[in-house]
């Protein structure tokens, strides 16, 4: 099949590649760019393991073609750490609050939570739960993911993290 040249920005770096028009963005990222943090759990837009941030929106990269991302600005989990390479507040929150087990949903969760906190820096628990409802986790039962995001929100806002009362 004829290939198309695509260029885009991924985690701040200009990248390019030759892809078939039908190549999914997630495959372009994982196979062409060799960045395997973005995962595939369903290929039907249900699980969110493949979530990346495109031009300021959370997008499931399993149901978008690479050619559709031409010229866009993408952030994947590999771009989530602080500029100095230390864990960001969100990544730290997931670790501190035990927000992951097998870690397979984690990149998608973190990328999604990143956008959620950009849009709503102090979300309530229901807002967090609704905000990550496009991301499935089979291991954690979400409770600690919610706490991880609350922890990160507190840290970003410079306030002390307080466990919500049971």
């Amino acid at each position, binding site marked *: 099949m004829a290939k198309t040249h695509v260029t885009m920005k991924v985690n701040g770096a200009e990248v390019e590649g030759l892809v078939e028009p039908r190549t999914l963005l997630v495959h372009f990222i994982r196979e062409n760019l060799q960045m*395997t943090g973005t*995962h595939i*759990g369903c290929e*039907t837009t249900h699980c969110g393991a493949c979530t990346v941030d495109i031009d300021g929106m959370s997008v499931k990269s399993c149901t978008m073609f690479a050619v559709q991302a031409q010229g866009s600005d993408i952030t994947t989990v590999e771009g989530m750490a602080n500029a100095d390479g230390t864990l960001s507040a969100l990544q730290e929150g997931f670790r501190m609050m035990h927000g992951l087990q097998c870690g397979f949903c984690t990149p998608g969760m973190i990328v999604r939570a990143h956008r959620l906190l950009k849009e709503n820096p102090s979300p309530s628990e229901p807002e967090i739960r609704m905000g990550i*409802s496009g991301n*499935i986790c*089979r291991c954690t039962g979400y409770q600690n993911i919610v706490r991880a995001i609350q922890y990160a929100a507190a840290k970003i806002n410079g306030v002390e993290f307080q466990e919500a009362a*049971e």
Partner: protein
Amino acid sequence: MNDLTPTREQREAALEGMGCKRKRVEDIRFTQGKGNYVDDVKLPGMLHGDFVRSPHPHARVKKIDDSEALKVPGVLAVITAETLKTVNLAWMPTLAGDVQMVLADGKVLFQNQEVAFVVATDRYAADDGINKVIVEYEPLPPLVDPFKSMDKDAPVLREDLVGKTSGAHGPRKHDNHIFEWTVGDKELTDAAFNKAEVKIKEMISYHRTHPSPLETCQCVCSFDKIKGELTIYGTFQAPHVIRTVVALIAKLPEQKIHVIAPDIGGGFGNKVGAYPGYICAAVASIVTGKPVKWVEDRIENLTATSFARDYHMTTEIAATRDGKVTGLRVHVLADHGAFDACADPSKWPAGFFNIVTGSYDFPTAHLAVDGVYTNKAPGGVAYRCSFRVTEAAYCIERAMDILAQKLKMDPAELRLKNFIKPEQFPYHSALGWEYDSGDYHTAMRKMMETTGYAALRKEQAEKREAFKRGETREVMGLGISFFTEIVGAGPSKNCDILGIAMFDSCEIRMHPTGAGIARMGTKSQGQGHETTWAQIIATEIGIPADNIMVEEGNTDTAPYGLGTYGSRSTPVAGAAIAMAARKIKAKAQMIAAYRLEVHEDDLEFDIDGFRVKGLPEKFMSMKDICWAAYNSVPPGMEPGLEAVSYYDPPNMTYPFGAYLCVMDIDVDTGVYKVRRFYALDDCGTRINPMIIEGQVHGGLTEAFAIAMGQEIRYDEVGNVVTGSFMDFFMPTAVETPHWETDFTVTPSPHHPIGAKGVGESPNVGGVPAFSNAVNDAFSFLGSTHIQMPHDFWRNWKAAKDLGAVA
């Protein structure tokens, strides 16, 4: 001593040993997208394989034409059963003593069964190839309902077994019959029923569901023709067993097979068995001389790899009028699908279903299980459960509620009356198992006090009156579940997989600087082994957990072990770790005695080193002993500080728990709200409370899904109608309730550190709690049992059938 001398507490805390909420070391890589899962493995020249699958549930395969497929750019090979026959791999042995087609051999037996394997240069080309393989089928009548499988005129499914009057587990009664398994004392049990004052009987179904970890099953196989070596990266919960099985069936020397299980994205039992994809990728690699990757997609995962449950349990309890149980009788019809590929230790065709007497002191019980074939996917796995314990717990916990209802007794009171008493442990059950330890009354009472059980019952009674007066359309249910698990498979005297005894292993090597590595026969799929195993070692030998690296999943370096499933890692491998550490400690003591110039018996272990009894300043730290182990050991002693332990447990362990679910259901819509869910678990010694709590949350969420909607459903002609996350209920953060956790600690008397295992308890205990809540909510309208899963529609339907909705 000065102010800088660390206190005992500080020294202890520095170890981050058992009981500490140590943060997980795994998370550093996972949170940065630096995990290494199978699909991340890329080998030079790697090809991709994918399956042509059957659209029919039951059909004869007349012809497979691959000529057009082979013309597709990028397609290199199409493998069929005929290809596999040349290497004797058209059929493979299952874990349950049956055989299974790898690729359709003459006929297909379930929808989406593997028919041909297309190998191509990339995923897209493989997919193009699949669409060009032309398969000619002659449809046959499908058999969907297990209750009809042994009818006289039922279609014969397994033509390879026609006329065989016995199978792996004894006589067969019908061409579609797999086995009958009975345990217990029939005569005594029948006698108990004959003179029973009260009896209940109910058909309790535990529907077919699926573990569906977020990462599907996958592998990369690479055969090196020159060296004659096969390397397999795969999502394997039991890598060593896979290596042995490959050696046996592919007739390759075992040392030339390298099985590597890298990071695994959840397993829940789904990744225990062997699937056609592994065999086909290996054969394809041998045929093409290139590495071959096989990655299952979600539809394939849900429709063709191991389902779970599908037990139809006719349950009877005999009791006295005042609520003392006197006998239990259960007959199970088990739908095993097209091949008996259930994951059970070989001696137990129905796994540990014989824990069906639960936490209660049944004087006698009798149990029979009939396994049958149907046109459905094979491979009943122990989905977050220890070999059918989940079904057993559901069965008895539902039945106890039904009995309570009949006796007009409170279900908590009925349970308290029948619990095995603390002084009865070790307890011998009527079905032949020895429960190691337990204190059920304390757990139950703690649950009742913490949740305010009595007040909740009062509120329920008031609500029922209000409902009858027409003041509310909501009904309230209280679901109790008290479960005992049987985990830690297991003792070689009664557990094995394909004849391999179910011990587990640990090898610890301490290096001169006081850092070390522990290699294990287990394989974490999210359980956090890298973190908790180091904690056991830290406490045992006094080296900080941070200085111990834990490695799993590489058969070249790890000692032989049976892997991680059925909550066996802590009860079995956890013990192996403690035993290996104790060997290290014993040698360390000899070294310390020599260096401190005292007799070994004059030393005592003190947190992080050895001290001369009565002379506190004469102390040698473990770190210094590590150094000395390589440079100044006593004369005649071998240098080095390492040990390996293969632990064959003397018995299973029996964790237990008391759960309560409070639920409100709107009868007009069937919509339920889980108002509260409280889970008290007793898993013996707690290694890392943070991880235990996380496991409980996860298990409860899976239980919630199963009880409240998740089902693998087939239509009447054998089509799977729940093949994606669109129609297979996957709770998101929005539906998932808030979990309250609690615990008691009753250590296992025979485990070196008293630990029992917890990973699947919440699933085992959770499902009956939810189902009992729904059933309890409707019971005052006259129903005794409503089958799971309790989705909105079924709740509404139940209300309607009971006359609560016009």
